[in-house]
C-alpha cells in the first residue's frame, strides 16, 4: 500500500470553534506556523449557536454595580458545587474582563449601557447612570449574584465567532475545513499529530506538529435530546482516550438546560428567563418561587432542571405526544423586547414550532446541553499523559466548571482559555522540535485505512450503525439523565457495553467510497460508545450528588469521600474505562452551601 | 490581475457607468412621462395641442430638447445595455436561472431588457418619422396615429412598461424606500400615464374619423 501524504506544521489545532481559533491566534502571533482543522467552515462551528452571552464582571450596568472578579469567582465555585479547580477559576475570573474587551476591540458589537430609569418585569425600578453610558452592558443569568452576562442581542456566540474568525483570516492562518481528525499519532510519551480523513474526498492524510491542541467541543449528540449541533459527537475526547494514556476528567458531569423546546430540542436561551420569563405548569402556575424563593427561575441550571423534573413527577406537567413538558412564558416582556432582544428565540418558535411567543406559551423540558467533562488538562491546558498535547474549550476539562457550568461561563472560557492556553502552547512549541519515525507514523494511518477497509468489506459483521446509535441515545436518555440511581446506571453500563461490542462489528449498507457519510458515522461509533461508558460508569461509581450529577439514592453532597475529580482511562482491549481519582484544589473558598438548590431550600424550611 | 488589465483599468469606470445609467434612466422616464402629457393635450382639443407644439418650436425648446433626448437615449442604451449578457452561455445561464429559481424581480429585469431592445427599434422609427414630417401639428399627428395606431399601441405599452419598472428599479437600487410600496406607487403612475395614452390614441383616431 502506498504511503500517506504528510503535512507538517508547528501547531496543529483540531477544532475551529471559538476556543480553537482563539488559541490559534495566540500561537500565530508568536510567529508559529499553525494549521486549524475543522469538520465544517469555522463560522459554522457550534460556538455560533450560543445566544445568551458571556460572563464578564465589568459591573457597568445598574444591576452589575459592585461586581468584580471576586464575586465572579465565588459564583463560579458555588456553581460548580466546589468541583472546580480554584486556581483555574481565579486565573479565569481575573482574565475575563480583558478578554471581553478584546472581543470588543476585534469587532463584537456588544450591547451597551443606555442611561435612564427602567422598570423590571417584577416591578423593581433600576437606573443606569450617565457615567456608564456606552460601556458594555450585561444581562441576568442563572446562578450569578450580579447581572454579568455581556451579550449582543441574542447572537453572542455568532458575533464572537465572526470576530475571532476575522482575525484568523486577517492573520492568514491556514484552515482546512471539511476534515476530521480520526486518530492521534504519538510515540507513547509525546503527541506528534493526527491522522485526518478528508470529508470532501474521503482520503486519509497525516498532519504532524510539534504541538497539537484538541478544541473539538462537546459530545451532546450522545444523547437523543440535546441542544447541541449534530456535529458535537465528542470526537476529540475519544481520540484522546483511544491512546490509553490520556484520561478524561469528570465525564459524569453532564449539564441539562432547563429550556429545550419540545419536540425539536432547540435551545431557548437562558436570556429568556434572565430577561424576566417565567416557568409555568399545566395549571399555568408559576412554580419556581415555591421551590427557590430567592433565585426563582434563575437558580443555577442543574437546580432549575431538577425542580422542573420534580414538578413534572408530581403530575403537574403538560401532557403532549412527545411526553410531558412545562411552559416558558415570555409574553409579558412585550412585543418590542421580544422582537429585538429575543428575536432569535421568537424566530425559532415561529419556524420550528409554528408558535408566536408574543401570544403563545413555549413548551419546554430540560435537555442535554453541555459537557463539563473532557480531556483532562492542567492549568496550562496541557493534557495529562502526553507531551505536546493540549486541550481547550468544551472538549477540555481544564476544570473551571466542576459539576455544573454557569450559563455564560462557557463562551467566556473559550476565549479566556484560548488566550491563556494559546500562550502556553506557543511557549512550549518554541522550545520543542518535531521528531518522528516515518514508518511508525505511516502505520497510524494504515491502521485507520484497515479499519475502513474492514467496514467496507463487512468482514466483522453486519451491524447497522444507525440502529446502534439510536439505542445508545435512548439508553443515555433513559438511565443517565437528570436524576440517576444505581440500578438504572447498572442497566445503562450493561447495555452500552453490549452496544460497544456490537459497534466493533459494523457493516456498511452503502459502498463506503469517497466521503461516504455512512462510513463517517461508522468510524465514530465505537468512540462515542466509549464516551457513553465513561459517563455512565463514572456516574455509577460516584455515590453522591454534586451539581448536575444527582443520585436519587445518594441525594447529599459528600465532601468527605467525593471531593475529587474522576479520571477515566481506556485500557486497550477493554470494554470499560478504568477510573482513577484526584483531589480537587481548594485554595480560597472552602466547600459550603451554594445558597440555592435543595440543601438551602431544606434549611429554609427547618 | 494581468499587467495589461492593470494598466488599462480605470478604477472609477464602473462608478461612472452606474451614474450614467441612473441619470439617463431618470431623464428618459421624466421625458417620456412629460411627452405623454404633452401628447394627451389633444384631449383638450386640437388648438391646445397645436399651441403647445408651436410654443415648443418657437422657443427652440424642441431644438435643444430633441437632440438632448437622443443623446441621453444613446448614453442610456450604452450604460444600461452593458448589463445585457452577450455571451450565449451567459444567456443560457440567465434563462435557466430565471426558470429554476423563482425571483419576481429577476423576471422584471429580463422584461426590462426585452422591452428596452424593442423600443430601441420602434422608438427610433417613431422619432425618425416625426422629425421627417416636422413640425408637429394635430393634423399630421392625427394622420399618423390613424394610419399606424397599432404601432403606437405597441410602443405605448412597451414604453410605459419599460419606464414604469425602470424607475421602480432605480429607486430599489438607490433609494430609501422598501420595495413593495415603491412597486405599488410605480404601478399607479404607470396606469395613469397609460390611461392618458389610450385616451389620446382614441381621440386621435376619432379625429381622423377611423372610429
Amino acid at each position, binding site marked *: 500500500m502506498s504511503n500517506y501524504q504528510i503535512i507538517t506544521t508547528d501547531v496543529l489545532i483540531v477544532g475551529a470553534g471559538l476556543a480553537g481559533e482563539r488559541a490559534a491566534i495566540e500561537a500565530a502571533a508568536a510567529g508559529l506556523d499553525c494549521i486549524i482543522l475543522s469538520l465544517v*467552515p469555522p463560522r459554522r*462551528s457550534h460556538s455560533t449557536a450560543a445566544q445568551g452571552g458571556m460572563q464578564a464582571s465589568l459591573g457597568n450596568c445598574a444591576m452589575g454595580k459592585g461586581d468584580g472578579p471576586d464575586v465572579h469567582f465565588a459564583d463560579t465555585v458555588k456553581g460548580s458545587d466546589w468541583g472546580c479547580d480554584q486556581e483555574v477559576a481565579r486565573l479565569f475570573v481575573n482574565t475575563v474582563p480583558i478578554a471581553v474587551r478584546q472581543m470588543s476591540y476585534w469587532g463584537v458589537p456588544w450591547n451597551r449601557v443606555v442611561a435612564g430609569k427602567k422598570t423590571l418585569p417584577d416591578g423593581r425600578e433600576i437606573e443606569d447612570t450617565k457615567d456608564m453610558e456606552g460601556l458594555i452592558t450585561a444581562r441576568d443569568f442563572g446562578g450569578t449574584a450580579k447581572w454579568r452576562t455581556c451579550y449582543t442581542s441574542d447572537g453572542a456566540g*455568532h458575533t464572537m465567532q465572526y470576530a475571532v474568525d476575522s482575525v484568523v483570516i486577517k492573520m492568514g492562518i491556514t484552515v482546512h475545513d471539511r476534515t476530521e481528525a480520526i486518530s492521534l499519532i504519538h510515540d507513547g510519551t509525546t503527541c506528534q499529530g493526527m491522522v485526518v480523513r478528508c470529508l470532501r474526498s474521503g482520503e486519509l492524510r497525516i498532519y504532524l506538529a510539534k504541538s497539537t491542541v484538541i478544541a473539538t467541543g462537546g459530545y451532546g449528540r450522545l444523547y437523543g435530546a440535546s441542544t447541541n449541533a449534530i456535529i458535537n459527537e465528542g470526537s476529540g475526547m475519544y481520540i484522546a482516550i483511544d491512546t490509553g494514556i490520556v484520561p478524561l476528567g469528570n465525564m459524569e458531569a453532564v449539564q441539562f438546560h432547563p429550556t429545550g423546546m419540545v419536540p425539536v430540542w432547540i435551545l431557548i436561551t437562558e436570556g429568556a428567563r434572565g430577561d424576566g420569563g417565567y416557568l409555568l405548569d399545566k395549571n399555568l402556575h408559576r412554580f419556581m418561587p415555591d421551590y427557590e424563593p430567592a433565585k426563582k427561575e434563575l437558580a443555577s441550571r442543574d437546580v432549575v432542571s431538577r425542580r422542573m423534573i420534580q414538578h413534572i413527577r408530581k403530575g403537574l406537567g403538560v401532557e403532549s405526544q412527545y411526553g410531558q413538558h412545562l411552559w416558558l412564558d415570555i409574553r409579558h416582556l412585550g412585543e418590542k423586547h421580544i422582537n429585538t432582544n429575543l428575536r432569535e428565540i421568537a424566530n425559532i418558535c415561529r419556524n420550528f414550532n409554528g408558535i408566536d411567543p408574543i401570544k403563545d406559551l413555549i413548551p419546554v423540558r430540560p435537555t442535554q446541553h453541555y459537557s463539563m467533562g473532557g480531556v483532562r488538562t492542567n492549568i496550562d491546558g496541557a493534557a495529562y499523559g502526553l507531551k505536546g498535547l493540549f486541550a481547550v474549550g468544551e472538549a477540555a476539562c481544564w476544570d473551571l466548571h466542576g459539576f455544573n457550568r454557569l450559563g455564560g461561563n462557557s463562551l467566556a472560557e473559550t476565549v479566556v482559555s484560548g488566550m491563556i492556553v494559546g500562550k502556553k502552547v506557543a511557549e512550549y512549541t518554541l522550545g520543542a522540535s518535531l521528531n518522528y519515525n516515518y514508518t511508525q507514523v505511516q502505520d497510524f494511518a494504515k491502521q485507520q485505512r484497515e479499519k475502513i477497509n474492514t467496514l467496507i468489506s463487512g468482514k466483522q459483521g453486519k451491524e447497522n450503525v444507525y440502529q446502534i446509535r439510536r439505542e445508545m441515545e435512548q439508553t443515555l436518555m433513559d438511565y443517565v439523565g437528570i436524576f440517576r440511581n444505581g440500578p438504572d446506571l447498572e442497566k445503562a453500563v450493561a447495555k452500552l457495553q453490549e452496544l460497544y461490542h456490537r459497534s466493533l462489528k459494523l457493516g456498511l449498507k452503502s459502498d463506503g467510497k469517497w466521503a461516504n457519510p455512512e462510513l463517517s458515522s461508522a468510524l465514530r461509533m465505537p468512540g462515542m460508545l466509549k464516551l457513553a461508558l465513561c459517563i455512565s460508569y463514572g456516574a455509577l461509581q460516584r455515590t453522591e450528588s454534586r451539581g448536575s450529577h444527582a443520585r436519587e439514592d445518594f441525594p447529599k453532597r459528600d465532601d468527605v469521600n467525593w471531593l475529587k475529580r474522576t479520571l477515566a482511562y481506556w485500557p486497550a482491549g477493554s470494554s470499560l474505562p478504568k477510573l482513577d481519582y484526584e483531589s480537587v484544589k481548594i485554595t480560597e473558598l472552602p466547600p459550603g452551601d451554594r445558597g440555592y438548590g435543595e440543601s438551602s431550600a431544606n434549611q429554609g424550611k427547618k | 490581475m494581468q499587467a495589461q488589465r492593470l494598466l488599462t483599468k480605470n478604477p472609477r469606470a464602473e462608478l461612472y457607468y452606474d451614474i450614467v445609467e441612473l441619470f439617463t434612466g431618470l431623464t428618459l422616464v421624466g421625458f417620456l412621462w412629460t411627452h405623454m402629457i404633452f401628447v394627451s393635450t389633444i384631449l383638450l382639443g386640437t388648438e391646445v395641442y397645436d399651441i403647445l407644439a408651436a410654443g415648443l418650436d418657437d422657443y427652440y425648446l424642441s431644438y435643444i430638447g430633441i437632440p438632448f433626448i437622443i443623446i441621453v437615449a444613446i448614453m442610456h442604451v450604452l450604460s444600461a445595455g452593458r448589463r445585457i449578457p452577450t455571451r450565449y452561455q*451567459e444567456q443560457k445561464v440567465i434563462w435557466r436561472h430565471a426558470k429554476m429559481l423563482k425571483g419576481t424581480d429577476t423576471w422584471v429585469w429580463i422584461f426590462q431588457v426585452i422591452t428596452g431592445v424593442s423600443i430601441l427599434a420602434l422608438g427610433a422609427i417613431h422619432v425618425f418619422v416625426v422629425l421627417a414630417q416636422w413640425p408637429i401639428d394635430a393634423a399630421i399627428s392625427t394622420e399618423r396615429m390613424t394610419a399606424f395606431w397599432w404601432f403606437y399601441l405597441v410602443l405605448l405599452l412597451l414604453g410605459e412598461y419599460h419606464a414604469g419598472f425602470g424607475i421602480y428599479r432605480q429607486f430599489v437600487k438607490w433609494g430609501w424606500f422598501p420595495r413593495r410600496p415603491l412597486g405599488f406607487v410605480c404601478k399607479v403612475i404607470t396606469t395613469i400615464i397609460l390611461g392618458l395614452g389610450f385616451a389620446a390614441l382614441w381621440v386621435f383616431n376619432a379625429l381622423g374619423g377611423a372610429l
Partner: protein
Amino acid sequence: MSRQLTFSIFRYNPNDPSSAPRMQEYTLNESTGMTIFVALNQIREEQDPSLNFDFVCRAAICGSCAMVINGRPRLACKTLTKDFKDTITLMPLPVFKLVGDLAVDTGTWFRHMSLKTESWIHTNKKFDPIAQEDRMDNEVALNIYESERCIECGCCIAGCATANIREEFLGAAGINRVGRFMVDPRDERSDMEYFEVIGSDEGAFGCMGLMACDDNCPMGLPLQLQLAFVRRKITMAGLKS
C-alpha cells in the same frame, strides 16, 4: 392523515469519474412537524446511506444547510414539508462548488469574500488590556448587529443571476458585509478605502437590483436597503475624491 411525500433529489459525486448528474426519487411518509432536515436524515438512515448533505446546528443559525427547495434557495433545517405539495425537489445551491449531492462548498467562497472585503476591523489603535473599553452608542451597536446577523448561508448568492454569471461578484452578502464595517466607528477605513474594496462591478456596481437576495435571505436581513445604502455611500466616496 399522513401523506406520502416524494423527494426528487440531485445526485452526483464529482470525485467519482463514473458518476453522472441525475435526479433520484425517494418516497417517505410525512410526520407531524417534519422538516427537510428530518426527512433527509430519515432517507439516509433508512433508504440510502450514501446520500450527502450538510447540517450542523439544525436550528437556522449556522448557515450550513441551504439548498434549492422547489425552486427557492432556503435553509433545509427550517423548511417544513407541510408547506409543499406531495413532490419536493431538492437541488444543491448553484454558484458554489459542488462537494457531492446536496452539499456545496460555501465555506471557501465566504472565506474568499471575507478576504476580498477585508472583513475585519481596521484600526491603528493598539489593544490595551488594562484600559476600559471604548464607548459606543447602543443604537450603533444594534445597527452593526443588524447586518452582522448574516449567517453566510449563500441563499442570496445562489438566487442572484449576476452571481451566477460573474464569478467574481461578491453578491449581497459581500456588499452587506462592507456595509457592516461602514457603520462601525471602530473601523478607521476611509471612504476611499471602502471604494477600492467594492467600488466596481465585482461589488456595489455589479448588483443589478435583481432582489432575489432580498427575497431569499432566511435571516430576513434588509438587503435591499442595505445594498442601496452601500451604493450611495460608495458613489459619494468615488465622486468626492
